[in-house]
């Protein structure tokens, strides 16, 4: 809590420089993220947009230090003044979930079917807060569920993931993350698996939480409409590389790159001709 924090307070929440993620494949090395640079100011909301295979999910996993086995990561990821790439696994675990929290695309498969949602929320909380009893963690879990407006949380806390609807499951995931009061929230396609009305609710919830807690948000999506609702800055990625970045209004009104224009055209509009998006990502880059 001294000079390091003060200098960090001046800088951005997250500063990514020259981030490169690669894999060794049978065909030789493949780079799925190539010298990516971006900043996320404190309290800012950044959208990372691109088609599947563009490396946006790999970028988020690289920040979390959760890249799949065999992946290499070079470059710099500075979080609140701390260089994450230099942290040992044990120190990184203190950051993961605790200071940077992540929610994923498919809330059903992202929750363990064998444990109640309460157990799964409480276990994250207990693993980061020393000396917390089961009972206290349960109270925290119920409070977090109430905060994401799951009705009857005191009873629902003992239910299993399969007893919730898709939107409610994503709320559970958000509650799990919220209970830790993270400084940075990474949401990887959080609404893709949900139907449209529920999508809007989840996005509203994320925006509300951001306003309440002042946490930074990185929203990863292929859907520009989603990004425009919640974020104030956009990073467009293609084939692992940065295409362009800028404030949401600028990207939407005055895209500099043809690829961004194509992405914008891909957002369906009633009065629009169909814009074709050419996919050139090689198969080896396909995300699961």
């Amino acid at each position, binding site marked *: 809590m001294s000079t390091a924090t003060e200098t960090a307070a001046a800088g951005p929440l997250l500063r990514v420089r020259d981030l490169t993620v690669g894999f060794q494949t049978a065909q030789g090395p493949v780079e799925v993220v190539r010298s990516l640079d971006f900043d996320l100011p404190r309290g800012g909301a950044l959208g990372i947009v691109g088609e599947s295979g563009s490396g946006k999910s790999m970028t988020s996993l690289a920040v979390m230090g*959760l890249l799949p086995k065999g992946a290499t990561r070079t470059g710099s990821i500075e979080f609140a003044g701390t260089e994450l790439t230099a942290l040992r696994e044990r120190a990184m675990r203190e950051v993961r979930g605790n200071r940077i*929290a992540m929610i*994923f695309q498919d809330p059903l498969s992202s*929750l*363990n079917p*064998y444990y109640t949602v309460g157990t799964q929320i409480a*276990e*994250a909380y207990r693993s980061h807060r020393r000396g917390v009893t089961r009972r206290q963690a349960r109270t925290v879990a119920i409070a977090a569920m109430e905060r994401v407006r799951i009705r009857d949380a005191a009873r629902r806390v003992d239910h*299993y993931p399969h007893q919730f609807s898709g939107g409610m499951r994503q709320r559970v995931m958000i509650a799990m993350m919220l209970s830790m009061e993270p400084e940075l929230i990474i949401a990887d396609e959080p609404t893709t698996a949900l139907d449209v009305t529920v999508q809007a609710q989840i996005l509203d919830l994320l925006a509300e939480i951001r306003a309440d807690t002042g946490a930074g948000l990185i929203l990863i999506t292929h859907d520009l409409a989603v990004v425009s609702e919640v974020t104030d800055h956009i990073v467009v990625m293609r084939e692992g590389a940065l295409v362009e970045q800028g404030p949401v209004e600028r990207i939407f009104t005055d895209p500099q790159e043809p690829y961004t224009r194509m992405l914008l055209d891909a957002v369906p509009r009633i009065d629009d001709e169909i814009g074709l998006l050419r996919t050139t990502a090689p198969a080896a880059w396909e995300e699961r």
Partner: protein
Amino acid sequence: MSRFLFNRLLGMIVVLFLVCLFTFVVFFVLSPDPAVQICGKNCTPEAIDQIRENLGLDQPFWTQFWTFITALFTGRTYGTGANAVECAAPCLGYSFQTSQPVADMILQRLPVSATIAIGAAVLWLLAGVAGGLISAVREGRFADRFIAGLTLTGMSVPNYVLALALQFLLVVTLGWLPFPQAVPFGDDPVRWFANFLMPWTVLAIGSAAVYTRLTRANVIESLQENYVRTARAKGLRPGLVWRRHALRPALTPIVTIFGMDFANLLGGALITETVFGLNGIGKLAADSITKNDQPVIMGVTLLAAFLVVVGAMVVDLLYTAIDPRVRVGSVK
């Protein structure tokens, strides 16, 4: 839930009835005439007829079968008048060799078989699950390869070879363990443990190898699950991630086969018991087969079938308890 139970019970009864019928046909109809056997060398046709009448062998097949079934529940009386012998339920008849009631013989030996089965099961479950988990999280590394080598050895060495080799090494050469005898636990727990250690190990090794491979495969699969990624993203310690999030889902299929394997073993470990001379159900079966003691063979067979059927049902019930998704009556 009660409907499920009822259906299972009904199915169980049908299966057991069919097993009874089948064994009855094999052992009583297709086998040599028991009356001749019982009568011995100095025998007259009248004596044989007398025995047939006493045992009810002169009756038609279905009558004999029905008497056998009812005897299981209500007992039966062999012979008439002064010679009548009462056989209390569950009556499985009398041994041709020792003239003891078969039910008593089985009950006497059941504790030995149960001791062997429980001890071996604990060993192989612990070794198999621990080995499989270590193997899975160290996939492709030294520990994994080492364990793979062990399991391959464990699976390829036959029971009796292992039993004899261990006996030679630990009892004869090194003198570390006594020659196995069924010592009751209450008499001397230490001796009890020393006596059963070898049979347990011998029985456990093969299964431990199989369970290790199964656990490894299941854990590797569950490690790919999205919820394991969530657990990591929450910042849980690797130990917790593996135990809670990877191992727990992997155990469901293991519980399923464990129930069957264990029930099977309760019905007698034939080879192990015979090699170590332990008087369990398996030894009883082996002895009665060599002496063609039909009522005993039949009794042992029925017991084994009963245990397997009950084991399968317990597994089904356990399964609903283990996996919250198949619990009946869950609320949406």
